[in-house]
C-alpha cells in the first residue's frame, strides 16, 4: 500500500533501539548507536514506537492548523466525531487518573472550540455492528464469503494484511471502520437533514490513533462524493487545542453529543478495548440469530489483556432449529497475528470470527493517546 509519512523520528533520537524492538513490521532502520529512520513503505502508522520512545524523539504529522483553519472559515460547516478510547484518556493531559471518563466535558470543550455539530464515533460503531454482524451471519448461514471473518476497524491491521498477506483479504469484513462510516454518512445523510451542502461540510475526527490519519487519506474513502473524513487529530492534539484556547477543562459542565448521528449504546463504548468489538458483535448476533433476549449482556470470556484469547459461545440459531457453538478469537498486538493467519490459510482454523487490533490492549493504548512514562 501507499507510503505516507505519518510517523517521523526526529534528530533527538538517542539511538537506543527501543523503537525497533517494538515495531511490529521491522520498519525502523538504524543500528544501535546510529540515528534511526522509518521505512514508510513498511510502516503501518500505528505509533507504538512514538508512545514508547524514552526520549520523546518520535513525532506524528500534526494537523492542528488544518482544524483551526476550518474552524476560522465562516464558509465551512465543521462537524466532529470522537472515538470511544479518547474519553477515558483525555483527562490524563489535565492531571486526572487513567480511565477517568471526561465524556461530558469533552463534548462541552468541542462546542467551545467552535465545532458546528459535535457528534460521536460511537454512533457509527453501532452501525458497524449492524453491517459487520449481518455480514458474519450471512457468511455462517448462507456461505456468502469465507470463514473465519476478520474485523476491519483497525487501519494498521488492514495495511499489514494488504502488505503481507494479500490472500487473507477476502476473509476480512468489507465493513468500513466506524471513523470512515461516520465520514460517509455525515456528508450524505446528515448534510441532507441539516440542509448543508456536502461541499461546505468539513469533517474532523478525534482519534486515539495515528494510523487513522493514514486511513482518512486513502483514495477510495470518497463514497460521499467528497473526501469523507477531511482530517484526523489525536487525543494529544485535542488536549493541546483545549489548552491553547484557554478553556478551563476540569471545570466545564458536562454536555451531551448532538442528536441525529450522535447517540450510542454501551456496545459501541467498549470498541476502544481489546475484545470490545467482538463482545458488541456477540450481543447483537446472539439476539438476531436466536430471537431471544440476552439476560446478561457481559461476555467476560473475551475480555482481558492477553495477546491471544478465545471463547466459544453456544447460540441457539432459530433458522436452523439447533444450537451452534460459535468459536471466536481475539488478537491484540500484531506480533501475535502471523500464526493465526497461517492457520486460516492452511484451513486449520477453528474460528468463525476473529478480532484483530494492532495495539496491545486495543485502542485505549493507541499511538495517539497521552504519553506516559510512569
Amino acid at each position: 500500500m501507499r507510503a505516507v509519512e505519518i510517523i517521523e523520528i526526529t534528530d533527538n533520537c538517542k539511538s537506543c533501539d527501543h523503537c525497533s524492538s517494538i515495531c511490529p513490521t521491522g520498519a525502523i532502520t538504524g543500528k544501535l548507536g546510529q540515528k534511526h529512520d522509518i521505512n514508510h513503505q513498511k510502516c503501518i502508522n500505528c505509533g507504538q514506537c512514538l508512545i514508547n520512545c524514552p526520549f520523546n524523539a518520535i513525532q506524528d504529522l500534526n494537523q492542528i492548523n488544518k482544524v483551526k483553519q476550518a474552524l476560522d472559515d465562516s464558509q465551512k460547516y465543521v462537524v466532529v466525531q470522537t472515538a470511544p478510547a479518547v474519553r477515558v484518556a483525555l483527562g490524563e493531559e489535565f492531571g486526572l487518573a487513567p480511565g477517568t471518563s471526561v465524556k461530558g466535558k469533552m463534548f462541552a470543550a468541542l462546542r467551545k472550540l467552535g465545532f458546528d455539530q459535535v457528534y460521536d464515533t460511537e454512533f457509527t460503531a453501532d452501525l458497524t455492528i449492524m453491517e459487520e454482524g449481518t455480514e458474519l451471519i450471512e457468511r455462517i448461514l448462507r456461505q456468502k464469503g469465507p470463514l473465519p471473518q476478520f474485523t476491519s476497524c483497525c487501519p494498521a491491521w488492514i495495511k499489514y494484511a494488504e502488505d503481507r498477506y494479500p490472500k487473507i483479504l477476502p476473509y476480512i469484513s468489507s465493513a468500513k471502520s466506524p471513523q470512515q462510516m461516520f465520514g460517509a454518512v455525515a456528508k450524505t445523510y446528515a448534510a441532507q437533514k441539516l440542509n448543508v451542502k456536502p461541499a461546505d461540510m468539513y469533517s474532523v475526527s478525534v482519534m486515539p490513533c495515528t494510523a487513522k490519519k493514514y486511513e482518512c487519506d486513502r483514495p477510495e474513502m470518497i463514497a460521499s462524493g467528497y473526501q469523507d473524513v477531511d482530517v484526523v487529530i489525536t487525543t494529544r492534539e485535542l488536549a493541546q487545542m483545549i489548552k491553547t484556547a484557554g478553556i478551563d477543562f476540569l471545570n466545564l459542565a458536562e454536555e451531551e453529543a448532538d442528536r441525529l448521528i450522535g447517540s450510542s449504546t454501551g456496545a459501541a463504548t467498549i470498541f476502544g478495548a481489546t475484545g470490545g468489538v467482538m463482545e458488541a458483535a456477540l450481543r447483537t448476533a446472539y439476539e438476531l440469530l436466536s430471537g431471544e433476549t440476552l439476560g446478561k449482556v457481559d461476555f467476560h470470556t473475551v475480555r482481558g489483556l492477553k495477546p491471544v484469547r478465545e471463547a466459544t459461545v453456544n447460540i441457539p440459531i432459530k433458522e436452523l432449529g439447533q444450537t451452534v457453538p460459535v468459536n471466536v478469537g481475539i488478537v491484540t498486538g500484531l506480533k501475535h497475528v502471523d500464526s493465526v493467519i497461517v492457520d486460516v490459510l492452511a484451513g486449520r482454523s477453528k474460528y468463525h470470527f476473529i478480532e484483530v487490533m494492532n495495539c496491545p490492549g486495543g485502542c485505549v493504548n493507541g499511538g495517539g493517546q497521552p504519553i506516559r512514562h510512569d
Partner: protein
Amino acid sequence: MNTFQEKTNLTRRQFLRGSGVLAATAILGGILAKFGFNVQARSQEYIAQRANGLYSLDERMTLRKSHENPEILQIYKEFLSPGGVTPLSEKAHHLLHTKYGDEIPELIAELKQHSHQAA
C-alpha cells in the same frame, strides 16, 4: 587435544578481560530485564485502567446493544434501507463497505462514476 591446547593458550590477561565482559553483560542484562519488565508491568496497569473506564461507562448505559440504538433504526428506515431496517442494502454497501488491496482502483472508478451520475 585441540580443546586442551586452546585452553592453555588463554593467557591470564585474556581470561580476566573475558570474564570481565561476561560479568558486565550479565549485570547490564539483569538491570535491563528488570527495567524493561517494570515498564511493561506499569503500562499494563494504565491500559487496564483505561479499559475499565470504558467497561464502567458501558455498565451505566441504558442501552447496551447496537441494534437497540434508536438513531441506528432511524438511519436505516429513513435513508439506508427506506421503510425497514435492512443492513447490507445497496446504499449501505455503497457508503459503508469497502474493498482492499488490488481491488481498490476498480472501487475508486466505481465511486467516481457514481458521484458523476449523482451530479
